[in-house]
């Protein structure tokens, strides 16, 4: 069995990569990908703990979380498509209209 701590390190790595992606990417699609990585790092974390405690309820929660992540990326793509129709562009710079 793979030691617990490796799994947690992978989860932390994914979380850091996702966070870095959210803060730095310029394109909308990449932003969504970064968010997915973030969510999956959390999922992996939960699965690891659930396996360690031999408790299936954690895994069930992760299933729900995956479903929500799918829905969320669908909403995100819908926003991006709407943005593209307005500006012919999905760069995050074109989302500046909400400021002063």
């Amino acid at each position, binding site marked *: 069995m793979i030691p617990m701590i490796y799994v947690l390190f992978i989860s932390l790595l994914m979380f850091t990569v996702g966070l870095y992606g*959210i*803060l*730095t990417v310029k394109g909308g699609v990449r932003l969504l990908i970064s968010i997915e990585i973030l969510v999956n790092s959390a999922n992996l974390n939960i699965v690891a703990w659930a396996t360690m405690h031999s408790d299936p309820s954690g895994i069930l929660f992760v299933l729900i979380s995956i479903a929500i992540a799918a829905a969320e990326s669908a909403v995100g793509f819908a926003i991006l498509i709407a943005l593209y129709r307005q500006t012919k562009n999905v760069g*995050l*710079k074109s*989302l*500046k209209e909400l*400021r*002063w």
Partner: protein
Amino acid sequence: MISYSGLNGFLEPQVFAAVMIFLLPIIIFMFVLPLGKKFHGFRKYSGIVVTTGIFISFLLAYYLYYTNANLYFYSAWFNNFTWGVYIDPLSIAMAMMVSGVSFLIHMFAIGYIGKDPNKHVYFAETSLFTGGMLGVVLSSNMVMFFLFWELVGLCSYLLIGFWWYKPNAASAAKKAFIVTRVGDVLLILGLAVLYWSFLPVVGNNDPLSIYNIIHYALNVAQLPNGQFNLALAGALVLGGAAGKSAQFPLHVWIPDAMEGPTTVSALIHAATMVTAGIYLVARIYPVYVYALPWADYLVLYIGAFTAFLAGTMGLVMNDIKRILAYSTISQLGYMLAALGLGFVMVNTIGNTIGISIYHLIVHAFLKALLFLSAGAILYALLDTRDIRKMGGLWKKMPITITAMFIGALTLVGFPPTAGYFSKDEIISLAYFVYNQNPYVLYAWILLVIGAFLTTLYTFRMFFTVALGKPKSYAAEHAKDPPWVMIVPMIILSILALIFGIFQSGFYNYFSSMFTGTKYAGTVSFSIPLYIEIIPFLLVLLGIYIAWVFYGSHRLSAEKVANGSGALYKIVKAKYYLDFLFTNIIAERIIVFIAIVVSLFDKYFIDGIVNGLGLMAKYGSMAFRKAQTGIVQNYAVMVIIGLLVFLIIGKILGVF
């Protein structure tokens, strides 16, 4: 005295009648003004509607008199104040006088103001004016009293400025308003002192109710400093009364107030306004009775001095209405002095309030009569007010001038008329009090000289107007006014002639006001005959002198005027009081203070307010740069904030 309170008390017939007395004219005001504005056809009936309403008020007041009402009704208003009516002989007599004389003046006004296109405004305002004054005399609480008092002041402003397109009238209205406002500031300070000094005695149980003021003044005086507080309150309230009742030095507004319609002058002088101050001092008499003596002497000497001073100014005026205005000031001085005599010598208080109010009522009749006849003259002479342009009117308008003659005789106190019974009583009382108290001597002298001056200026006016030859085209073609204006004059003439027979009955009626109180009982005073007839001899002398100068023209008044040099100039300039108030106090001192205050307001108060606004404005300009609109910047902020909290939590040992 019966006390009522709450709704059940309100449904008591006497209480309901008393409330309706002042409410009815105010309700009529609310209807007449919009109706007259909307329906032009209604305007010519507005006078009749208002006159009828005031006559109903008079009937209600008569009902109170007839049923011998003596009651105190109060109902919850504010936490510490009630509203209600306080009915005793003083308020009933005042209410009957106000509504009765006001009714006659309104009847006259139907003819006098009839051609004015805005007559519905005039009648609505006079109705409100009368309602306000009736409210003043019936109020049971000084706060309610003050509200009606201000209502009267407002209406006087509106009515003096009724012909607002005349610059004189507009400025006279402003002057009347501002000068009485000075008095009102003093009055409200006086009410504050009263409240403060009655609070320890009465507690939170309505300290400014007239009932409590009358019944607990003695307890207040027994407190440490109580007498001083009462004297201070009395002096401040006297200031308010002086503003409304045109006593020295706040009398300056009344002569200018003559710019309004003559019927308004009649209302102000006879019924609705200037008597309010006298009523106020008479209403809270226990305050003065228990105050330190200086407040009492203040009342006495302000009254006596005004009676004298206004008489001298009346001598040199040429405007018929201004002569009457100064005579009003002078007669109000007599009323105030009579009250002051009672305060100085407390065991005569049972007499003096009756004597003072009797003179007030007689004066209301005669002054309404004089103003209405002056109004009839102005009506016939197309608003010529200079007596030097009249002359010979007795032949042209016999009824009017006969009414004026009766008014003049009553004003000077010629024996068979009511004025003899009222004014000479005050002078005799002054001499009687002087026998007990030597400080009153000067008041007596001032009052006697005042009576002489009254005769002199009244008959100077009368002879110049009535005798000789007409001195202008309008005077040659004058004739008596229509019957609607003559009837009130005839009624008032009869009252002025025969009201003297009610003298002792009136005094008895007033002494019943004190039944059951410490002031009950009257003093029967007698003074030597040779003192008592001095005023009468001076009246005869005054009529003779006026006849020599203005009737037969055997001596020339101009020569005397020129011979007296500076004295004539000073009196003619009204003792430079107007100059002092307007050019020195108002334009130098008040304007200087106003500039300082306005600069303070502009740069300090406004500086704070505007500074706060500017701070928000420029601060937001700086901070809104943080709102870039780029989502990732916000995410960075979120993460930095989270880190900061985590670090703080770690340092504090929360985790």
